[in-house]
């Protein structure tokens, strides 16, 4: 956690970007309603800027995944894994790393009054959801850019190149589900007393169907001499999961910001 060293910087950047988003919405005149996309993009930009200036979540998640691979090496007593075991190790590690990111997703808003700024601004509240889910998605992709090569190098038996496009498709669908559910759970837990406990307790069971789909889809990809593209039905399960929870989260997110 490098962010603890520079406590003053992120809020300033966040407040500035938040005010900028409100101003942008105001500039378009009182008659026109603010679209959902522009405020969402402004909020997303704020989050990414924050993470770039004071990297906090992504380095922690990357380190966590690499450490967990080492733990699995010793825990399983194996030098290389393949097939469903490899899929399980990779995906469970990514899931747990995502929990770290979900825990921190709204911390800046909570600590520095970002929620009030969003409520004061003339924007749709679902813009916050879209922005936060997109930010988490970007974080997850960044983590996987390091985690998947590290996994292939440290633990995977055989080469990853043949099945890489299929794996990318599975991970992309999984990441969307993680981002959507993560954004809602993070908002749900941020104002409770025991945020760090609530997030994994609620998020992990909710993510079981996504893990089932991703693990079943990825297992043949990571087997030595296995398939190069996942079976359509598991991609379908993942897609259905993303769709259902995406729509649901979009519908109920409003109520988490109402104060």
């Amino acid at each position, binding site marked *: 956690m490098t962010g603890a060293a520079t406590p003053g910087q992120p809020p300033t950047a966040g407040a500035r970007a938040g005010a900028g988003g409100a101003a942008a919405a105001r500039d378009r005149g009182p008659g026109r309603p603010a679209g959902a996309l522009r405020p969402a993009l402004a909020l997303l930009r704020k989050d990414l800027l924050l993470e770039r200036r004071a990297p906090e979540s992504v380095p922690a998640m990357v380190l966590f995944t690499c450490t967990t691979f080492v733990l699995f090496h010793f825990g399983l007593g194996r030098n290389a894994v393949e097939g469903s075991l490899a899929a399980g190790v990779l995906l469970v590690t990514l899931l747990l790393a995502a929990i770290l990111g979900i825990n921190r997703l709204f911390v800046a808003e*909570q600590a520095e009054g970002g929620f009030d700024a969003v409520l004061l601004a003339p924007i749709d509240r679902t813009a916050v959801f879209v922005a936060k889910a997109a930010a988490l998605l970007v974080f997850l992709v960044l983590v996987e850019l390091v985690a998947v090569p590290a996994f292939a190098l440290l633990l995977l038996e055989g080469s990853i190149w043949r099945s890489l496009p299929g794996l990318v498709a599975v991970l992309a669908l999984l990441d969307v589900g993680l981002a959507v559910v993560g954004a*809602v759970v993070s908002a*749900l*837990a941020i*104002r*409770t*007393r*025991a945020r760090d*406990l*609530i997030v994994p*307790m*609620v998020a992990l*069971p*909710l993510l*079981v*169907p996504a893990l*089932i*789909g991703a693990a*079943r889809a990825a297992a043949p990809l990571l087997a030595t001499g296995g398939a190069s593209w996942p079976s359509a*039905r598991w991609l379908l*399960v993942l897609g*259905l*999961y993303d769709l*259902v*929870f995406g729509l*649901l*989260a979009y519908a*109920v997110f409003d*109520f*988490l910001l*109402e*104060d």
Partner: protein
Amino acid sequence: MHAKGLRALTLATLAALTVTLALVVFYAPNDADQGFIQKLFYLHVPIAIVTLVAYVVAGVLAYKHLRTDERRWDVRSYVVIHIALIFNILGLVTGAIWAKASWGHWWVWDEPTLVSFLIVFLLYATYQPLRFAIEDPERQARYASVFAIMAGAFVPLNFIAVRMASSLVHPRTFATAEGGLPGEMMLVFLVSLAAMTLLFWLLVKYEIAHKHATWQLRALRRRLLGDDAVAPLGRSAAPAIVPEAVGRRADAPAPAPSISPSDAPGAAR
């Protein structure tokens, strides 16, 4: 007011449960493979069905709470989830016993009903801790409703995913081409399902009536004996009910607002 029809419902439930037990023991034929132990089916499957339906219903009630912002929907959603959790545990236990009798293991990962039951249980077991972690009653009700809606949609989705992931050891009782159950078994099963539904409904009504009675009693004590006679409320996962039947003096403090110090705007953060 909330106890209306409770006696009739209680008698009906008792009768239905008695009839069910009698039918299961004396009328339903013994299974050719599994013998008497198969009769656990008449307990396990209706409990499972009632539990899953109840979770979805709780999601709908929570949706109504968010739409109308009336606390009684939150109370109903809370109580339905509470009773469904108890049924969920019953379903897990009967399922484990059945698995032990049929397949020789207490836990069978190839049984999709049992596995999704465990996952759903793990999810809903966080409902009360989540409520408990939120002090402001308004926010507690709202966040709990959001949780109940997400989880209610999760239940069928999870069921599909788990069923697809497991091989087909589990008896697919209703899905076979020839219609599955023979007539007598089907009759007993339907009676049992009705009895379990009645039991669930009865328990929900009892708990809601109990909550209202407790809160009315509290308000009455407060009015008659003064504020000191009533112990201050601790933090609670259960929703607080403001009894509308008890008239309050205009100068008397309302019964609910003393729930937590964080009621004041901005105090929670």
